[in-house]
């Protein structure tokens, strides 16, 4: 065995705290180590070729690189050693950066620790064996979870490239958040005018199947071969018959809160969210339906020209096979009412969220595009009042530790500017518009200019400072919302008596995102946003091979960014599925059958049913692990009492040797 040890300086990242040269020299005393070397940037071209040079010229049969985290460069160096003709699995990485030089200050101690980490890696590399990947065939169909703009974009890109795509959308229509927006910044072009054609394209695309009002119930399998159980929720309407004529909706006597319009208006128990819905199909909200709640009514059944109503309908389950899965589950609006009691907890009618205002501005919205004060709505013989003074408050549920949302929602500054401008155009230029902000984040193309326009052209008054309190008061006979805050630029208290206050409520992960992540075994951060595999190098992949991210499910995004990422994701998926066979990791478990005592504990514990009872020539049964099914977790290995199951790359001997090496007096 000829081991080569390469110790990285990583510039000063490592060498600043660890004597890379020193431990490289010391490593020469370790058994089987025939070559040691320290390199300034091992991952650089010269660094990698140094390794290859040594492998070839000194006939190294094992390689240890002491540098950064294997999560960073294990793949890189595996390729490097493979390039020099060495099996890539005869390589081990010692993490002396993230786990040492970056977390310690004392040079001598850090150096000592780095050497111990290196020794452990050498002990492990001695135990490694050459491994060869398996190949599995790939299912080329793609599942897109979420039918918002990101999901639609990914689906269309993939479908155009010839792949079969299934969009699973939990609402009755695709469109997501964007479908609820009026205009989009910075172009102020109509949101629906951009989106609805794409929705129709998706619906009509021969390669796309839209499964609306469905949810992913269970996911099994692995990259290239996922098996997904999908639950078709009972709409109480036969969608094959339904023609989306809306008659049921007009005749239905039962009112229900209008979720699509964020509660600004009411809809019916049987409903279609909006006129351009795709698919345009009705569904009954059972909890509001008279028939289901009181056992009488059935008006919809009587009026339906297509005889589509089916009160007996049950949830259905379908199972489908996919090669890749794209998460595009989008976002929800931060529930500010629960957190901002100083803003009235939602009890002040004239304090509304940005999304509510978006609906108000929308021509097909509850007020047909008229800007009104909700407190003056629905009063008999009185027209709703148009606000004369409108105040926008930014960063509600963003950049606010006190409500556990330290992050920036990244879209509020811009949509506030947009809404401020639209307020002028809807309610007249004479409307007083204030924006309370912390900082203006206008980083996108044409964004800064857009904000400037709001301030100059539309004379929107930007006040830098937080609003500490909102409360109602009656000033000269008319009801106002008093906005009390501070102007940090002038350094004085300001108070505005507003007719309408719009909160730029931030973005939070979609409701249920975490539960879904757990079904797919992908990781997520503390706010429920899905975690990318690497923030810079693998921004659209998850840690679970074959599962990708698109749009705001990963982090708050505006439309252009979401769409750009969605197309990037599509490209990644295409890259994956362009192959007919996939190499699977060879770091899997294997049974040494002549030692198996047939206790079947492995069969019991495996989450993937990889171990099977295999009949032997003598008629007895021994455990056998199906290579392509095994995911290499090693649960069976730790459960096997005789230790006759070996996890390649993480053998018990390798682990024990590392422990003993470390504890060696």
């Amino acid at each position, binding site marked *: 065995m000829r081991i080569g040890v390469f110790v990285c300086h990583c510039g000063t990242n490592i060498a600043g705290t660890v004597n890379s040269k020193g431990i490289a020299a010391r490593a020469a005393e370790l058994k089987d180590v025939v070559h040691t070397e320290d390199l300034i940037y091992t991952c650089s071209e010269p660094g990698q070729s140094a390794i290859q040079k040594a492998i070839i010229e000194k006939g190294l049969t094992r390689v240890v690189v002491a540098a950064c*985290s*294997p*999560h*960073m460069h294990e793949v890189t160096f595996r390729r490097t050693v493979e390039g020099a003709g060495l099996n890539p699995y005869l390589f081990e990485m010692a*993490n002396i*950066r*993230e*786990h040492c030089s*970056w*977390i*310690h*200050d*004392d040079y*001598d*101690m*850090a150096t*000592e*620790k780095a050497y*111990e*980490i290196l020794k*452990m890696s050498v002990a492990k590399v001695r135990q490694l064996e050459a491994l060869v990947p398996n190949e599995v065939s790939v299912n080329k169909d793609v599942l897109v979870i979420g039918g918002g703009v990101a999901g639609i974009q990914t689906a269309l890109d993939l479908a155009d490239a010839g792949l079969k795509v299934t969009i699973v959308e939990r609402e009755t229509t695709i469109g997501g958040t964007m479908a609820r927006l009026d205009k989009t910044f910075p172009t102020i072009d109509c949101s629906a005018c951009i989106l609805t054609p794409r929705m129709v394209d998706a619906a009509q695309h021969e390669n796309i199947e839209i499964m609306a009002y469905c949810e992913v119930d269970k996911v099994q399998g692995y990259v290239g071969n996922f098996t997904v159980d999908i639950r078709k929720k009972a709409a109480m309407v036969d969608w094959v018959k339904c023609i989306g004529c809306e008659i049921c909706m007009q005749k239905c006597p039962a009112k229900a809160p209008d979720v699509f319009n964020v509660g600004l208006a009411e809809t019916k128990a049987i409903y279609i969210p909006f006129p351009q819905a795709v698919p345009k199909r009705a569904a009954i909200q059972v909890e509001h339906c008279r028939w289901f709640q009181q056992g009488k009514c059935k008006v919809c059944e009587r009026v339906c020209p297509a005889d589509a109503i089916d009160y007996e309908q049950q949830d259905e389950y379908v199972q489908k096979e996919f090669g890749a899965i794209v998460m595009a589950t989008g976002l929800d609006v931060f529930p500010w009412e629960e957190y901002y009691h100083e803003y009235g907890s939602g009890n002040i009618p004239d304090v509304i969220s940005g999304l509510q205002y978006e609906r108000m501005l929308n021509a097909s919205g509850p007020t047909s595009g008229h800007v009104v004060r909700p407190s003056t709505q629905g009063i008999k013989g009185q027209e709703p009042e148009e606000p004369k003074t409108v105040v926008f408050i930014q960063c509600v549920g963003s950049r606010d530790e006190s409500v556990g949302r330290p992050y920036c929602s990244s879209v509020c500054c811009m949509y506030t500017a947009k809404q401020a401008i639209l307020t002028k155009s809807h309610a007249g230029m004479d409307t007083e518009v204030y924006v309370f902000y912390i900082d203006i984040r206008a980083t996108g193309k044409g964004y800064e200019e857009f904000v400037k326009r709001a301030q100059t052209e539309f004379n929107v008054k930007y006040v830098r400072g937080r609003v500490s309190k909102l409360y109602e008061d009656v000033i000269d006979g008319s009801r106002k919302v008093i906005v009390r805050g501070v102007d940090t630029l002038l350094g004085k208290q300001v108070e505005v008596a507003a007719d309408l206050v719009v909160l730029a409520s931030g973005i939070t992960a979609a409701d249920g995102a975490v539960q879904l*992540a*757990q079904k797919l*075994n992908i*990781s*997520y*951060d*503390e706010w429920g946003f899905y*975690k990318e595999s690497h923030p810079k190098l693998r921004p659209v992949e998850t*840690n*679970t091979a074959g599962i990708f991210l698109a749009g705001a499910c990963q982090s708050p995004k505006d439309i252009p960014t979401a769409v750009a990422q969605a197309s990037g994701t599509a490209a990644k998926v295409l890259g994956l599925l362009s192959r007919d066979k996939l190499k699977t990791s060879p*770091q899997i478990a294997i049974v040494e059958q002549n030692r198996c005592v047939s206790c079947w504990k492995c069969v019991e*514990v495996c*989450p*993937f049913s990889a171990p099977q009872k295999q009949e032997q020539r003598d008629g007895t049964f021994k455990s056998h692990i199906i290579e392509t099914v095994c*995911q*290499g*977790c*090693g*649960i069976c*290995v*730790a*459960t096997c009492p005789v230790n006759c199951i070996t*996890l390649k790359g*993480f053998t*018990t001997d390798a*682990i*024990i040797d*590392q*422990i*003993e090496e*470390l*504890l060696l*007096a």
Partner: protein
Amino acid sequence: MAQATDTTQAAGTTPPGAEDDVKVVGIVCNWCSYAGADGAGTARLKQEFEMRLLRVPCTGRIDPLFAIKAFEKGADGVLISGCHPGDCHYSEGNYYARRKFELLDRMLPFLGVEPDRFKYTWVSASEGARWQKVVNEFVTKVKALGPREGRAL
């Protein structure tokens, strides 16, 4: 977090070879805790010096006997860390591990190993700060107990 910064003060201040020089083995899963430790490193979160990490795919891979072996071979503390329940990359590994290590945790004191010398916990890939806190608190406790020379286990 507050605590983390507190314990940070003490981090890495022990000179090598001091009598409270202890050896601590950490066995962590590849997907969550190892990545969490990476995160802590990337964020330059200072940590106690004595922790040495061993990477395995999943806490489900860890045989309680590894911990016992470590103690037998002279470890002064053993830390096991993996994905939070529900987040296991292999969906179930940490559930099996949780049972095994709960039993180990309860048995070790009976076998003459002080409770503070063993801990099993969950640190996700995004919890670098938590990792720092876990390491510093654990190692500090082990240091307080000192080395376990001349112990049978």
